[in-house]
């Protein structure tokens, strides 16, 4: 249940943002997860529902997905991640540490592991709404 650790991280960051913005009650937290990390959104949402407290007690957590896209640094090829391109073990490894994508994924044109994850890497906080 690695998603719980990610949910805790998002909540800790959301608390910092809410304090910074002087929010007394948070109504909505938008979170985006990258396709590459294959986060289980249901578990993540459940974790949010169990972990939220204080000014987040009645907050709605909205989790969106961003598709993963890569750009090869060697040949410039741009491609979209396909789940079928990695086996179960590799996908599991990438799930925990997305950077090991460079171990298991290669540029489909030139075969280089030196590519940039342009979109869809991990998990991040998109926005917070609430009452000041």
């Amino acid at each position, binding site marked *: *249940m*690695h998603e*719980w*650790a*990610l949910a*805790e*991280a*998002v909540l*800790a*960051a*959301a*608390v*910092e*943002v809410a304090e910074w913005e002087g929010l007394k009650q948070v109504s909505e937290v938008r979170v985006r997860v990258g396709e590459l990390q294959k986060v289980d959104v249901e578990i993540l949402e459940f974790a949010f529902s169990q972990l939220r407290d204080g000014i987040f007690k009645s907050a709605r957590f909205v989790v969106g997905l961003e598709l993963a896209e890569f750009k090869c640094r060697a040949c410039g090829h741009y491609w979209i991640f396909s789940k079928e391109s990695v086996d179960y073990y590799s996908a599991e*490894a*990438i799930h*925990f*540490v*997305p*950077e*090991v994508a*460079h*171990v*298991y994924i290669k540029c489909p044109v030139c075969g280089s*592991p*030196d590519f940039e994850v342009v979109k869809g*890497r*991990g*998990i*991040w*906080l*998109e*926005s*917070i709404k609430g009452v000041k």
Partner: protein
Amino acid sequence: MGDPRVSVIDERLRHVKRIIAVSSGKGGVGKSLVSCALALSLVKKGFRVGLFDLDFTSPSTHVILGVKGAKPKEDMGIVPPIVYDLKYMSLIYYSGELAAPLRGADVSNALIELLAITRWGELDYLVIDMPPGIGDATLDLIRLIKRIEFLIVTTSSVLAFETIKKLVGLLRELKVPVVGLVENMKRDKASVIGEETEGLGVKFLGEIPFDEKLESALGNANLFFDTVFAVKVREFTARI
């Protein structure tokens, strides 16, 4: 908005009393060997110890200790397996024996990810085997772990020690404590490194002679712990 993972790192390390990064200016001076011997030495003294291999592109502590078949457990994060009474964490659980060709930004991301999701629990010491130099991993650890302390390893070579001066200068500038310096692979009786270390205002922890038998003990933690090398590390452990 900021990286949410960074916000939880303090919490993950809250119950770790001391965090010691074993570092050097150059590669090949014996950081990983010192990290392993230090971690084992602390365990034998009865402390609760974690060992974290942060040399993502060239990890070697698993080879030194002979770690085989260990896997972290998933439990609201990842819990490092116990290896020789150490909580042991490495990227090799995810990269296997394959090459991990990571650029600086990738090293930073992987480091933050592992710090954010690893549940170390209660530890007296977390020993971190660093990659060489003053690049991304070093700067990230200083940025992310306010309580970090450094233990520096060098050889007798002026080439290695020259880079140590830069590392010590950086750490001093950033007000990061240095617990001491170890001179490894010592082949003569010269005391230059010890004197120069004290001259830098850093505690000289001692010399480790070049150990001809060390290579044959790699891969077996019990044999490794009884080498001349490890015995020397055990001697200075109490002074850290």
